[in-house]
């Protein structure tokens, strides 16, 4: 019935384009006094609800009055206000335009709303005209000025579209209900999101929709997602649970719950199960805490809050973990990012320096737009609008992007979706591809042309992702079985600081983000095993790459060896470089934990140079390592230093890479 009514209303809106304003008077309706009386009654009822802000209640009686007389400016304007507040934008603007046509002065605020309507249609020029006509005394004047700036931005930038494909990610994720807040692991293989869908024993919240709950799905092939499933153990089912952020490896999650005014919770995945979420007391206040994200190393949480002392409505803050694993006092990110308006839905990219967020304070196309900022030289850069069509004249928020910056996800309400808000995937295509026009000229009179003029198009470069995604599996070297709970420690070996430490999951897997511009030492260890080390010296200019590893751990047993990959010497010398300290301390820890263990520390070289020279050099190097351990307290009788020269290569000496592998220090259990 409602649909039929709406259809009739639409037709009336369309057909009666050139009517005059008709009041609800006897003179206007001399032959239908009964209808007029009913209509006036409906109108009065609707206006009463409207004045109380009860838009849903006001809608029906106003619509009934409209069926009697669709040509009343005031009634059309009131229906506009109803539907606009009920977020029925397209229907609301029809009423607005009709009201304006019937009487451009029906309400002092109509020019402001006409500006909104034009801006929503990307008619920025007209929108600016309407905004400039908003009276100085109007409560919307300041907002109109802000929206004018947005329109100017829109005019200048709408032509420079971001090259991308935007697609609904399908009905394994999206339903007829609202789905939003997508978060993905850095490699894009798993997605968590919030949904207000129906399920068994689902309960309704006060707004008449089901409570928010957290779901997940895994990639099941090329761009396909497996059917989504509710996450066990973290949804409380009696109230809202909305996922906000996850760590790079997907082992920790930030959750929003509607406790008080809205608080943030944290949960950790042990094995395959999520622990009970705990409130983050250091962050939560009486204000509204929402939208949060982890930094790439899991040691900082960025979140949004409307607490006092900010720059506007919601601001973005950060809290950093101390050495004891406690979250520190939040600090506001400052007024480069935060505005007198709203900043929300923050996401920290795994490159360790890029932040995405939505705002209705920075210049945009209208409503909330998504912005990006980078931390460079100790400060955040001026946020940049991601551009059309990622941003639109509507509200665009909850944006996340994979480590390689090629795939983004966000939620939007669009025609053609499954219903309500859906999650969409954005495939970024990168800067505009190169094209060049050709024009040939006959430069010399009487001679055939041979000159091309190339006019190249301008390219708008998009900053490439500068990080290495390290994806590994830890297995037993003998059985090849995965080792769950292996410790993975990541160091900056130049600064000799530990960056992060976590465990492999129950399938022995782990996922790390290594932002470019650091010399990393990786140490993987498990109880009963010798540790394994790797070195990743990633220059600042290195762009996105994925490194896959299978780490084989040897059990602690006589005869087992490890290569100490983070021991470095000066060229052609036996002088230890400072970057070696971390690894040497790991050896010390291992020997301390196994007091009966006796080891051989051996030096090896490539085949450049004489045998005698290399034997001597490798011996000296082994002795230097032994000396370090002696000085730390390991007894001499537990260690033996040997120099093998190039007698025991582990790789070819025909290539640079092979020779680099052969130049090494080894640790072998001899007793």
């Amino acid at each position, binding site marked *: 019935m409602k649909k039929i009514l709406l259809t009739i209303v639409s037709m009336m809106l369309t057909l009666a384009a050139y009517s005059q304003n008709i009041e609800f008077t006897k003179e206007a309706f001399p032959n239908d006094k009964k209808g007029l009386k009913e209509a006036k009654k409906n109108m009065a009822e609707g206006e009463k609800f409207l004045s109380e802000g009860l838009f849903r209640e006001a809608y029906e009686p106003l619509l009934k009055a409209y069926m009697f007389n669709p040509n009343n400016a005031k009634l059309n304007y009131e229906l506009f206000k109803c539907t606009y507040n009920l977020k029925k934008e397209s229907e609301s603007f029809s009423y607005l335009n009709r009201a304006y046509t019937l009487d451009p002065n029906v309400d002092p605020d109509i020019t402001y709303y006409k500006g909104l309507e034009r801006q929503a249609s990307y008619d920025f020029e007209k929108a600016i005209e309407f905004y400039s006509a908003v009276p100085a005394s109007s409560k919307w004047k300041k907002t109109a000025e802000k929206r004018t700036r947005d329109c100017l931005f829109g005019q200048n930038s709408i032509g420079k579209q971001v090259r991308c494909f935007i697609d609904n990610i399908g009905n394994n994720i999206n339903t007829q209900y609202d789905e939003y807040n997508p978060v993905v692991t850095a490699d894009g293989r798993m997605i968590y999101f919030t949904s207000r869908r129906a399920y068994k024993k689902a309960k309704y919240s006060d707004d008449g929709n089901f409570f928010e709950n957290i779901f997940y799905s895994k990639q099941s092939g090329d761009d396909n997602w497996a059917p989504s499933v509710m996450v066990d153990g973290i949804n409380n089912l009696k109230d809202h649970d909305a996922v906000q952020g996850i760590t790079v490896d997907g082992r920790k999650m930030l959750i929003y719950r509607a406790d008080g005014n809205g608080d943030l919770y944290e949960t950790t995945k042990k094995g395959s199960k999520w622990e009970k979420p705990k409130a983050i007391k250091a962050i939560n206040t009486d204000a509204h805490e929402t939208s949060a994200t982890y930094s790439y190393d899991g040691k900082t949480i960025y979140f949004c809050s409307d607490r006092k002392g900010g720059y506007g409505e919601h601001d973005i803050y950060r809290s950093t973990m101390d050495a004891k694993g406690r979250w520190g006092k939040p600090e506001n990110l400052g007024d480069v990012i935060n505005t007198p308006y709203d900043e929300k839905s923050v996401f920290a990219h795994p490159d360790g320096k890029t932040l995405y967020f939505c705002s209705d304070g920075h210049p945009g196309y209208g409503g909330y737009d998504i912005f990006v900022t980078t931390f460079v030289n100790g400060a955040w850069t001026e946020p940049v609008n991601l551009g059309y069509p990622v941003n639109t004249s509507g509200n665009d928020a909850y944006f996340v992007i994979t480590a390689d910056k090629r795939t983004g996800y966000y939620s939007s309400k669009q025609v053609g979706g499954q219903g309500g808000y859906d999650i969409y995937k954005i495939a970024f295509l990168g800067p505009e591809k190169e*094209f060049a026009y*050709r024009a*040939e000229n*006959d430069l010399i*009179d009487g001679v055939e042309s041979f000159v091309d003029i190339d006019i190249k198009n301008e390219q708008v470069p998009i900053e490439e992702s500068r990080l290495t995604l390290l994806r590994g599996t830890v297995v037993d070297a003998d059985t090849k079985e995965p080792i769950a709970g292996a410790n993975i420690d990541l160091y900056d070996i130049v600064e000799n600081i530990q960056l992060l430490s976590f465990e492999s999951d129950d399938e022995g897997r782990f996922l790390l983000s290594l932002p470019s511009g650091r010399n990393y030492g990786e140490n993987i260890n498990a109880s009963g095993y010798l540790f394994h080390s790797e070195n990743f010296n990633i220059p600042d200019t290195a762009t996105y790459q994925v490194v896959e590893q299978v780490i084989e751990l040897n059990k602690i047993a006589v005869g087992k060896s490890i290569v100490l990959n983070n021991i470095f010497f000066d060229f052609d010398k036996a002088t230890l470089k400072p970057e070696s300290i971390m690894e040497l301390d790991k050896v010390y820890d291992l020997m301390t934990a196994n007091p009966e263990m006796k080891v051989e520390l051996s030096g090896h070289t490539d085949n450049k140079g004489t045998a005698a020279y290399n034997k001597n050099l490798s011996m000296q190097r082994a002795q230097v390592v032994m000396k370090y351990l002696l000085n730390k307290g390991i007894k001499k009788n537990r260690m033996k230093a040997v120099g093998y020269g190039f007698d025991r290569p582990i790789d070819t000496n025909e290539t640079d890479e092979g020779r680099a592998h052969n130049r090494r220090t080894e640790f072998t259990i001899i007793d």
Partner: protein
Amino acid sequence: MKKIFLIGLLVFVGANCLRAQDTLKVEAKPTTNEVARRLYNQAFELYNANSSDVALQMLDKSIEMDGTFCEPYLLKARIQHEKHDYPATENTLKSYLSKGGTRALDTVYFLFAKMYSETSKVAEEKAALNKCLELNSGYGEAYYTRGIINFEQGDFEASLADMTSAIDNGVNTAAVYNDRGSCHRMLGNMKDALVDYTKAIEREPKAMYYCNRASIYSKLGQDDDAINDYTQAIIADSKYYKAYNGRGVAKAHQGKYDDAINDFTLCLDMEPSYTSALSNRGIAYYKIHEFAKSVDDFDAAIRAEPHNGNTYMYRGNVKEMMRDKQGALEDWKKASSLGIKTADKYFKDNCN
């Protein structure tokens, strides 16, 4: 008696005087040089009356008379050159030189140069011009001709110097200003190029000159001026298809893609296989998201020019936007194999 004697004496003396005059009046025979000249003059008249064959015969006779008289050789060489009998032309000129002819040697060498030009003997042509200019440093035409050779050889500085010398020595044609403008252009002196192209246009409003000036405006970002000049070129010669193409490019530069497409289409109506216009129209279609039409144009451009790597790359770029990733990769790979490094980057970036 005395009177009769005197009258007789007078008659005798007078008769003898008369006889003497008769003896003086015996005509002197004409010299071979004079004959040669007369024959040459006749040949010249016959040549001007379009009787070149008979003129040649006359010239041969003139040369027989006096082999050192150079004018017949030059006219003979000219006639032979016009008949495209280049070996004969070369022989005639060489004969003149071998006979020790010394007059108009600069012209002789200039004629050599023209003959070598016709037979594409560039080195010989240039050598002949150099010799001509050695003999006569004011031979404007020779500078101009040598300037063209230098331009074609990519020596734009030398070409510019020659063109300027040509102008300084009386060559004042539209062509020389156009060509000097082109030298400036190749040397990056756009403002000087504009000046010279304008001088060329002032002397002769030729489509080619307008197009050359238009292209300079395009390079300077003055697209409206470029469009005006291309339009003038079209007015001067409605069949000068390159003007439509150039104007289309200028309009595309202004973002007026529909108008640009119209111009490219007009160009292609005249020259359906003109790959520049096909490629340009393909790009313009891409800009307005008419991807299928864009691909069609690049397909045609590839058929016309199968070894142009850029066209493959562009087609790949369009296929990417059509979500034909496999097609895009294939085209970028092909473009890369034809030496387009940018396409190689595209291919590697998108292989996953």
